[in-house]
Each structure stands twice: as C-alpha cells, then as structure tokens.
C-alpha cells in the first residue's frame, strides 16, 4: 500500500499516526520538541517571575489585570483543547468528517482566543502598561506574546492542514500531521494554564 493512499475501514491501523516509520519519527521528534519548548517557556516564566514586581514607569499588575476577560479566554482555550481531543478520537476511528468538524471548531475557538488577547493588550496599552514602560511590561508582553504567537502559528498550521486535505481522506501520510497538531495544541493550552495562574492570578495578589 502507498502512504498516500486513502485509508479504508478495512485496512485502518490502530494508530494511523504511528503506522509508518516516518510517522513514528515525527511523533517522537515532536514530543522531544515539546520537551525543548518546556525549557523555552520556563525561561520566559522565570524571567517574568524575576521581574514581575519591577514596574518601572508603568502601572502595577493588580491595577490593570482584567481577570474576568482572562477567565473567559482560559475557558475558550480549554474547550478548544477538548475539541482537538475529539478530533483525535475521530481520527482513530477513521471518521474524517467528524474529525474535520472538530478541528474547525478548534480553529474558531483559537481565533476567538486571539481576538480576546488582542483586545486585552490594546486595553492595557491605553492604561499605560506598555512593552517599554518598565521591566514588568517587557516581561509580560514577551511571555504572553510568545504564547499568543504560538496560538497564531497553530491557527495558521491548522488552516493549512484543513484546506490542503479538504476532500481527501485519511492516509498514512497525513494522519501524523493531524495528530501532531493536536499535541501542539494541547501543549499551548498547558502553557496557558500556567500563564493564567502565574501571571494573572498571582498578579492580583502581588
């Protein structure tokens, strides 16, 4: 069978994402990449925590943070993580339509998260909390912005995946791609859980 061939219910492997050596490599390589990303974000978190009380010329964290909005963003991202789980479940059952549907929902949720974040940033900038207003500002926008960048990249990636494979079924070639995307998305969500806790909730107590 050719890797590009559409899978049928008859020849469908248990884990289509790991059924080829290429798939196995991608799977492992991506997990290891996430291990590296852990250090990447840890460095950002560390920097942020080291500087979180150095407001410079900007306002203090507790004065500006908009917790309800951030809370909403958190729920949105969590939900999108769930929908991507559903997509993976569908992938494992060769239900292409369902999978694409869930992924589409994931994309929408991701985009609305981004929208909220941009709105939030604009709001902060108006309050005088900017990238250059002090060490805290720099650290905040860098950490949260890096995460936002990851979400944005995820959305671009997912869009490409969905468009490229529209009208195509699952193959041994494209299932690892879907699976990897889901891993990525979960990871981005994990990072957000910490941002919510360490940046926003901690910011309120000071």
């Amino acid at each position, binding site marked *: 069978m*050719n*890797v*590009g061939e559409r899978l049928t219910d008859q020849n469908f492997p248990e884990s289509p994402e790991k059924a080829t*050596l290429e798939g*196995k*490599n991608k799977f*492992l*390589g991506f997990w*290891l*990449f996430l*291990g*590296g*990303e852990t*250090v*990447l974000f840890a*460095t*950002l978190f*560390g*920097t942020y925590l*080291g*500087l979180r009380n*150095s*407001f*410079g*010329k900007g306002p203090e964290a507790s004065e500006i943070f908009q917790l309800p909005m951030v809370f909403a963003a958190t729920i949105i991202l969590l939900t999108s993580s769930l929908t991507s789980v559903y997509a993976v479940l569908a992938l494992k059952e060769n239900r292409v339509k369902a999978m694409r549907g869930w992924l589409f929902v994931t994309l929408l949720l991701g985009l609305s998260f981004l929208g909220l974040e941009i709105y939030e940033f604009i709001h902060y900038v108006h309050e005088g909390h900017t*990238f*250059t207003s*002090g*060490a*805290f*500002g*720099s*650290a905040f926008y*860098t950490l949260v912005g890096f995460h936002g960048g990851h979400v944005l990249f995820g959305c*671009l*990636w997912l869009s*490409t*995946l969905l468009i*490229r494979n529209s009208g195509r079924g699952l193959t041994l*070639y494209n299932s690892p*791609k879907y699976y990897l995307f889901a891993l990525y998305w979960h990871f981005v969500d994990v990072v957000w859980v910490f941002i919510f806790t360490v940046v926003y909730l901690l910011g309120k107590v000071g």
Partner: protein
Amino acid sequence: MSNAHAANKSSLWDWLTTVDHKKIGILYLISGGFFFLIGGLEALLIRIQLMKPENTFLTGDLYNQVLTMHGTTMIFLAAMPIIFAFMNAVVPLQIGARDVAFPFLNSLGFWLFFFGGVLLNLSWFLGGAPDAGWTAYAPLSTTSSGSGLDFYVLGLQIAGAGTLIGGINFLVTIINMRAPGMTFMRMPLFTWTAFITSGLILFAFPALTIGFFLLMFDRVFEANFFDASMGGNPIIWEHIFWIFGHPEVYILILPAFGIISEVVSTFSKKRLFGYSAMVFATVLIGFLGFMVWAHHMFTVGLGPVANSIFAVATMAIAIPTGVKIFNWVFTLWGGQIRFTTANLFAVGFIPTFVMGGVTGVMLAAAPADYQYHDSYFVVAHFHYVIVGGLVLGLFAGLYYWYPRMFGKMLNETIGKWNFWTFFIGFHLTFFPQHFLGLMGMPRRYFTYPEGFGLGSMNFISTIGAFFMTIGTILFVYNIIITHAKGKMVSGDPWDGRTLEWAIPNPTPHYNFLQTPLVRGLDALWIEKMAGNKKMTPAEPVGDIHMPNNSILPFIMSLGFFIAGFGFIYFNKGGALALVAIIVGLGIGLVCMFLRSWIDDHGYHIHKKDLPKEDKGADL
C-alpha cells in the same frame, strides 16, 4: 523536486538541495573548517597584540571585536559544526541505518547554521563586529553602540535554531532507526555521546533562544529586561546564558570523548574497557552538566550558600570524567597500540585533557575562583579542555574517518608533523597562561603595562600560537595533497570494529544494501572474529526508499537571513528594514507552507538497479 538520478550528480545544485546525511556532513565539515581558520586567524591577531607589553597593533575597540568574534566563531561556527559533521557522517552508519530520521530538517539545520554564521561574520564589513565578549553580558551588550551586537544576536539566533533542529534529528535517528539487534547497550560510544550531546542541545538551546530574544528586544525594541533604571536585572542574562553555556561545553566535549573511545579501541585492537561504565559516565556527565552553571558566576554575588552548592556539584563531575580517563588507559593496557596519526591525537588528548580537567576542579573551589575568575588562568583552563581536548579529538576523528567520508586516507607522514607542531605549539601557548593569570593578568585585556613582568610569558604564548598555525597549515596542505594524489582505499582501512567500516568505498548513496543484523558490541569485529567477510544481512535485497532532494531548506534559511538584516537595521534602516523583515519572514513562512502543502513521498531505488548482493567492505 528532483528525482532518483539527481543523487549521483555532484553539481552545485545538488549540494544546495541535498538531504543526504553524508553530503550534509561534508558541508558541515567544510564550513566549520572554514570558520575554524577564521577563528584561528582572530586568535593569531589576539596573540600578536599581546606579544609584548603596550603593543599598539590593535586598538582596544578592535581588540574587543576580535576577541568576541574569536570566541563566538570558534564555539558556535567551528566546533559545533565540525561535531555535527561527524555525527552526520558517522552516526547513521554506526547504527546500521540508511538515513537519518528527518533528512529534510537535517538540511534545514545546516543551512540555518550556515546563513547564521555568514550573517554574524558580515558584521566585520558593516560597521564593526560585536565587542562584548562571547558571553555578551548585559548591560554592556545592550548599550554597546553600533550594530555589532545586533549581528551577534541575530546571527547566533538563526544558527542556534539550526543546531536545535539538528539535535532533535539525531535524537530521533538514534532512538528509532537502529538496525535489528542494535540495542542501546550495543551502540558504539560515539553514537552514545552523539545521543547525549543531542539531548543536551535540546534542553540547553531553548534557554539561549529566549536569552537572545530578550537581548534583541532590549536592543531593538527598547524593552527593559536588563536596564536597572527601569527595573530590569542584568543578572538574569548571566543566568540564562550559563544555563545554556555550561551544558554547551559538555555538548562540545562529549562527542570528542566518543571519538577518542573509538580511536583508542580500534588502534589498540581491543574492546573498549568498561563499556557500560563509559555509557553511564556519559549520561551522568550530561545530567550533572545542567546543575553547575553558576560556577561561572561565583563572583557575581550569589552568596555563600549558592556558591558552596554549585562548587560541590561542579567537583562531582570530575568523578564520571575520571572513569572515562581510566577506562581509556585500560583499553590501551594489554593492547597492540598502533601510533597512527589518529591515535597520536587520541593519546595526546588524554593527558592534555586531564590537565585541563584538573584546573577546572581548581576553578570549582569557589573562594579560590575569586582569584582565578576572569584571569588568564581561566583562559588556560578552557583552552586546555577545548583545544587540548576537543580540537585534538576532532583531529583524531578527521584522520580516522577521512577514508569513510572521502574514500581517501590522509597522508600519515604529514599527519605526524601536523600532530607534533600543533601539540607542542598548544602547550607552549597555553601552559604559561596559568601563571599569567595567577600573576594578576585579567582576561580580555588588550594591553598590559611594561612594568608588570608579564611580557616574557606572553611572548612564549605567542610563539606557541605560531607553532599551532604551522600545524594547521600542514593539515590544510595534507587535505590538498590527499585529494590531488591520494588513492582510494578499501572500505575498512584501519581494521575497524564498528558498522561504519562494513560498507564499501565510496559509501553507497543508500549506505547499506541490506540492513545488517547486529549481534553484539563492535558488530563488525564480532563477524570478523567469527570468520565472516561481511555483516549478516537482516533482510533480502529489495527496493530502497529514499527521500527527495529539496531547495526549500536553502531558501527558507535565506529568508531568515534577510529578515535578520531587517531586525539588525530596524532602528536605523527605516522602511527598507521593515520591508526586509516582512519579505524575509514571508519567505520563511511560504517555504514552511509549501513543505506542508506538497506531498513528498520520496522515491524508491528499484531492486533491479541495485547490486545483486552485499559485498561488504571489499577487504
């Protein structure tokens, strides 16, 4: 995309698009070697300036640039790529694989490194090189005028991304692509060290990536990470740099340990003594390597508790390293030691590295380091471990694997001259520097007064550097002679023990006609002892799947290179810089998009186009 036949051509286009790990290895070797010459030239300038007191050959400003570029070039653009050259050339062969896990990414990793290195070095022609030392401590690095440090940040950022990609590639290759029977505890030690080094890369480089971003944001976008007057804290940079920086030195030395293990065992005709202990020591060094970084910061003011903890943790690394040293000595013990050039370098490595290692332990004694730190004693220490360790190891590896990489053997007579001039020159250069440091000569000094009595030692040191230059030139000459006059040798010229010697010369495109079956440590040696002429195959001859060449990695790296320029000139270049950023990043993104869009299934070499049977290394 190209096709099956492109692989056999050797045109420029083929080199730009290749995804063959053997060719990428050669690309790494050539560019790493070139940067080594540049870095060496810079070292010579340093030594000439310091030859006599109050010399005026270089100004303070220029000296700082030369010094910074010497350190940076040597570490990031010479040592690491040459290590990657060996990993590419050897690891897949040693584990009996036809390829690496991610051929495309492998090529991308190379081109990112290459363009990053070029970007950094272009600073010489565009208003001055970086001048804050290879450690780029803030706020000197954030306030330094000119664009030098912007080149540093962006050049290394791009090159570093390439390194990270390379690291992941080798981790996955080693985990997933081993031939049947090649268990972890049967892997040759070079593969083991490549594995651990890749792991260190994976976890150390992301910290540096962020560090560079912070530095860039401070410099280019007026962020305040390291500006104390705005609440920033320059110590954060020091930590981030050394959280990366210390693992980095083990990233450098571990592969050299691997090379020495292979060479010593081959040329004493013995199995490596204490193989499992060697593996364990490698893992332990990698692990401990992450917990000692603050020994570079003893004088920063971290307080006695932190200093004590890091001092003791640092000393602990001497234990697994010692295990390695003694295991090498006992591998030689009772052997039939052949002093080929490769082995000369290896046995030169052992005592020299021990000297560098023990001065490292002296540095680890924190209160004594209050005296050593930032003095020539440290310079002596790290050149002993880097030049006396890593570089001698790399030379050993070059002489050893040259027939595998290029099919020809380097000239042994010139090789021996190469060794002795370099080795003697090395000790002449760096041994006196221990005393210079203790006599109160700080490092990174472009000059020193007449009356301090530092002149004679410095002079000896400079003479030594010229000897090393002769050694290096002899090596270059050796390469030229070898390619002009040398003859092709058999696939197993050294009576090797490991799988890379089980294949004919030149190495076929697909490495192994039939994947070999591995029956123990030193797989080839086992077959030889069993009276077999070649490896037992694990599969019949069949179609071989190969990846397609691609120009995308080159173009993608070019895109980031262009974007790098944009960031460098963001504050001075106006609209043009912005255009460069957008276009550059755009090119990068479009390439990623294309890679995602175009299905790339590779191609097959058909059975009928392959030899009928595996002939082995045509002994």
